[in-house]
């Protein structure tokens, strides 16, 4: 475990999130303060519905906090998102059925305007990393849940984000696959 870095990559200061639905307000998060240093592997653990997904999405600037400050990579969360500083993996792989696995992994690079040659080589690297090199030409529905999730991780890492946010990435998989995936993840 490296010593605490002076510049945290994630800095949450008294973050609050309240949801109001039909007159009733739920406080999903309250008084969350957190520092995460670069290179750290942090797990948020808690019962379901306790706000883990909400917190993750606040860090990723997909939801706005009701109060508090969010800094990612030394900038406000919005700028970090615009600068593509982080990658996301969800509980479901959320791959596009009409694209091959290769094309799915390439997607963020396409959006970011990376040249085709660079996209190709980067995608090959990523698929090799998650051990899906033989399945590049397949379509997502032809792969098992675990393999799809590996492809989703490859996609999240494709553009070398400084931060990787994962929302119960192995929650939808069976026990054995989950054990294996946990080991794989640590390796990556």
């Amino acid at each position: 475990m490296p010593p605490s870095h002076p510049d945290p990559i994630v800095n949450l200061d008294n973050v609050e999130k309240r949801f109001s639905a039909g007159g009733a307000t739920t406080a999903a998060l309250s008084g969350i303060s957190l520092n995460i240093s670069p290179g750290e592997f942090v797990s948020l653990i808690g019962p379901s519905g306790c706000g883990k997904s909400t917190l993750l999405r606040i860090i990723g600037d997909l939801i706005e906090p009701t109060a508090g400050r969010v800094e990612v990579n030394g900038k406000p969360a919005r700028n970090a998102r615009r600068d593509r500083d982080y990658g996301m993996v969800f509980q479901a792989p959320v791959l596009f059925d009409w694209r091959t696995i290769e094309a799915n992994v390439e997607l963020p690079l396409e959006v970011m305007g990376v040249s085709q040659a660079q996209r190709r080589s980067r995608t090959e690297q990523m698929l090799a990393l998650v051990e899906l090199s033989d399945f590049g030409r397949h379509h997502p529905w032809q792969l098992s849940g675990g393999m799809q999730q590996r492809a989703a991780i490859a996609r999240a890492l494709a553009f070398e984000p400084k931060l990787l946010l994962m929302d119960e990435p192995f929650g939808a998989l069976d026990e054995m696959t989950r054990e294996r995936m946990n080991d794989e993840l640590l390796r990556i």
Partner: protein
Amino acid sequence: MVRLGRFSGVLRSIVAFVAILVLLAIAWEAAKWVAGDPVRQTPWGVVDPPHVPPFTIKQLNDTNLPHVWEVVGAFVQPATRNSPFSLGAVLIDAAVFTGRNALVGFGIGALFGLLLAIIFVHSRLLERALVPYVIASQTVPIIALAPMLVLWVGTGWTSVALVSAYLTFFPVTIAGIRGLTSPDPRALELMSSYAASWSTVLWKVRFPAALPYLFTAAKISATASVVGAIVGEEPTGIRGGLGRAILEFNTQYTTGPQKLWATVIVAAALGILFFAVVRLAEMVVLRDRGAGEL
């Protein structure tokens, strides 16, 4: 059958279609045999003494329901008393004429429908404001709207195409809205995390996701565009299409009912052709998606 792959389904559909057609023809003649007009002449020779059916139902007499062989025979007979052309040739020409207008109408209607769907998906305000008018537009009978269209745009094939487009765009818009909003919200969150613009999201996520829905609407619109092109020929007074043929043979019905029936068959065939082309395009474009048949 298995070797033909996905086309074995198409083959089976065609065989079933032809089989039903034959059964229909048999039922048609059987009904007339039992309760139609006396039969004196068939293509297979004279019936002597004439067969007199035991019952009489007016709807099955020779004027209301001509014999199947009379309708088929009408195709090779002259179109009108002094015409050098066979009815079949005239109807094929008319079908091409109407088909061209329907194609243009389909293209315009589909494009406009898609544009409308894209606008509605991206602007909640415009959707809420305009959707009631869009729906109302379809409840106004086209018979009333077509003459108005002719007054604004003038006679000629453009107004026919516009009537056709009018009946085409609505299914595309409705299916388009559904399809463009169908992607998993997390897919949209992912695109947000890549800081993708709305046009990138539209092109890379929403539109591909909408394609299956759009093809379903296109099948409905395909036949609607043909109907629109036929109906649009009446107020524009345009000659040379199936609409005009239907009107003319309608006035001549009592002397030659089989001609109108022949025209109706050709119109139906045109609609089926449009549908089949859309279906074929769907099979090609959606071949990688792995879900469902037909």
